[in-house]
């Protein structure tokens, strides 16, 4: 299984153990080869950090800081047996940060704060009070999905996220002066471990015709996942205080992240 994750690279998987339906009508329905789902999600991430102070000025390069995100993805799901299915989905999540607390602390020390990310982040902003940052996170899920209708389904799983910022540049200015430093933070290596997930899915099926090639049912599911993971990353930090030579440091940071995700999933048709 681990090799599968590695080969798949950016995969998100959930392995579910579920309460299975004993509804005879449901069990008599034909096996579906695939179905298309539209999932809309709302996520709140509460990152934990072991040693964020290792980075210059306590700046972090991880996805973090009370993130609230909203996104959607299309899923292809197949059922190989009546009781279990596999769900493979790809989509984009849009996140919006409000790093007020973070900037409030910074604003005590710096009159101006600017951040600019790499092409994945497309982040640029400056200001002292707070900062809105948004980015799009492409992702791929691989879900083994228990088949159960109108049930509360407990889920455990493992996920890989492809959130992978590699370069940040920060500019910090001492208040009321011309003096500032620019820190370029480049990720040089990363040891990413699987993230573990616990969740619940409340599922409701509204229709089931059971005819192959036609809309067979309409599932609306509400998923809640608590995801925890950690990883280590090496960074090269180049700090330039202007009119002085740049200082280059190599540091390793261990990140711990905790995510709480809510997803509404609707399957729109299946064959």
């Amino acid at each position, binding site marked *: 299984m681990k090799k599968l994750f590695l080969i798949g690279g950016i995969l998100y998987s959930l392995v579910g153990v579920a309460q299975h339906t004993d509804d005879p009508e449901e069990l008599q329905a034909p096996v579906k080869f695939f179905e298309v789902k539209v999932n809309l999600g709302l996520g709140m991430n509460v990152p934990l950090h072991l040693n964020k102070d290792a980075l210059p000025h306590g700046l972090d390069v991880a996805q973090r800081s009370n993130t609230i995100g909203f996104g959607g993805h299309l899923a292809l799901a197949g059922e190989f047996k009546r009781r279990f299915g596999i769900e493979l989905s790809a989509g984009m999540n849009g996140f919006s940060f409000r790093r007020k607390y973070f900037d409030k602390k910074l604003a005590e020390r710096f009159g101006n704060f600017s951040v600019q990310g790499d092409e994945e982040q497309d982040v640029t902003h*400056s200001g002292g009070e707070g900062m809105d940052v948004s980015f799009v996170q492409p992702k791929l899920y691989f879900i083994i999905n228990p088949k159960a209708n109108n049930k509360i389904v407990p889920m455990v799983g493992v996920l890989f996220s492809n959130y992978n910022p590699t370069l940040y540049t920060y500019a910090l*200015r001492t208040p009321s*002066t011309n*003096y500032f430093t620019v820190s370029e933070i480049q990720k040089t290596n990363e040891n990413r471990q699987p993230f573990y997930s616990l969740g619940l899915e409340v599922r409701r099926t509204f229709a089931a015709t059971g005819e192959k090639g036609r809309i067979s049912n309409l599932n609306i599911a509400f998923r809640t996942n608590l995801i925890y993971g950690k990883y280590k990353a090496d960074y090269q930090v180049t700090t330039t205080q202007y009119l002085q030579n740049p200082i280059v440091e190599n540091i390793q940071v261990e990140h711990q992240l905790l995510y709480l995700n809510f997803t509404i999933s609707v399957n729109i048709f299946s064959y």
Partner: protein
Amino acid sequence: MLKLRNKLFIIAFLASVFYSCEGDIFIRYHFTGLSVENAQNMGEMPTVSIADSIPKEAYVLRMNLFPVETERTGRYLDTESPPFNANPIDSIFIYSNKKFNDTLPAGSLLNDLFLIFNGNYMNTSDLNKLEITNVYSGRFGDEPVPKYADLLLMIPPDSSQYFRFYVRIRLNDGTMFLDTTDQVKLY
């Protein structure tokens, strides 16, 4: 006949739509003068100061450059295609009337003490590179052509005293402009 007329109408309509689609703005400009002022950087961005004293850690020399646009085409501003300066600044020379420190007596060239601030601390330029642009600035949308350049004083003078700064710029075609600031106390 009616069909032919309809076809002609459609072709004309598509042609008008095609020609009305304008691309990114292209702006050609050049600087036409120089007026220098004292400015201070106590707030978020440098602002002109008429005070007779400014903290030396926040002193800014503002060069007003009086740009004139000679060409503008297109509709959409894009930082990828910034305005083109047809006669850019070739060199800047900054002097002061007083001794700055032990190694910089009165009349010394002070270029190495200043940085060009382009509205963003991540995109400054020293006076050798001479990049003056609004592309990195938040005001690019309203003011794509830079009307002025702010020079941040990064190394303050040793002592607190009154200074007057002399600035001379030379454009690529050899045109020279010269101006002097009002006297200001850096403390």
